[in-house]
């Protein structure tokens, strides 16, 4: 039987959506509590790592394809750069905080910082899952990566 025992599989089934939810919570509250883009992205990636550990790579691929993870990674960098460049066009500075500041200690505050954190979170999630796959699945000399 592929993967680990049935106990680990069932608990993984139950936990993986909640891990995703928790990662997004950390990303979205990065400007209010400790955390932010990087830890939230690591949590999101660790959900897929958990699926890979418990079930084997097919289920994890069904949830997030390898090509999709690189697309997500590029998308994160793109969001970050576009936000930075919009600052130049709107007011003249790189990374100008051009959005209204909102209420302090609520979820909509601090201008563009949450949006930047979303970009960072997507980038880190994609990158860490890709790094995990590259380190684990494609051992040097044993298995060549097949062209898609």
């Amino acid at each position: 039987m592929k993967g680990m025992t049935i106990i680990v599989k069932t608990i993984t089934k139950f936990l993986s959506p909640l891990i995703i939810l928790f990662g997004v919570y950390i990303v979205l509250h990065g400007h209010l509590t400790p955390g932010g883009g990087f830890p939230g992205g690591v949590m999101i990636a660790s959900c897929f790592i958990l699926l890979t550990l418990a079930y084997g790579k097919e289920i994890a691929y069904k949830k997030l394809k390898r090509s999709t993870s690189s697309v997500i990674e590029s998308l994160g960098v793109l969001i970050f750069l576009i936000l930075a460049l919009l600052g130049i066009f709107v007011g003249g500075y790189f990374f100008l905080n051009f959005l209204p500041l909102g209420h302090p200690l609520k979820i909509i505050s601090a201008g563009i910082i949450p949006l930047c954190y979303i970009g960072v979170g997507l980038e880190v999630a994609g990158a860490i899952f890709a790094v995990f796959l590259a380190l684990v699945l494609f051992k040097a000399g044993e298995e060549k990566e097949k062209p898609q």
Partner: protein
Amino acid sequence: MSEIVVILGNVFIVVGLLFDLLGCIGLVRLPDVYNRLQASTKCVTLGTCFILFGSFLLMGFLWKAILAIAFVVMTSPTGAHAIAHAAHHSGIKLWKKSVVDRYEEDKK
């Protein structure tokens, strides 16, 4: 009312710390992997749950602590099971005074 809650929270934290200490003493004293896994997993899980429940009472009913208790109760026995299963499959024998090993008999 609130004083009762504060005293109760502190009592929960002290009991949880004592259980943690017992679990770690078991981790040091017991003879082989499976016994250590039993003692430490049981005691440390319950002790940490008590500490979290005490903080739930002391911080004005912070419901995140209940969520953390649910996660600890779900994940900790599962991790212990995975480690025990892997240790048995990697060929670690039971303690020499053990009575019976049905799993080893049935695997052959």
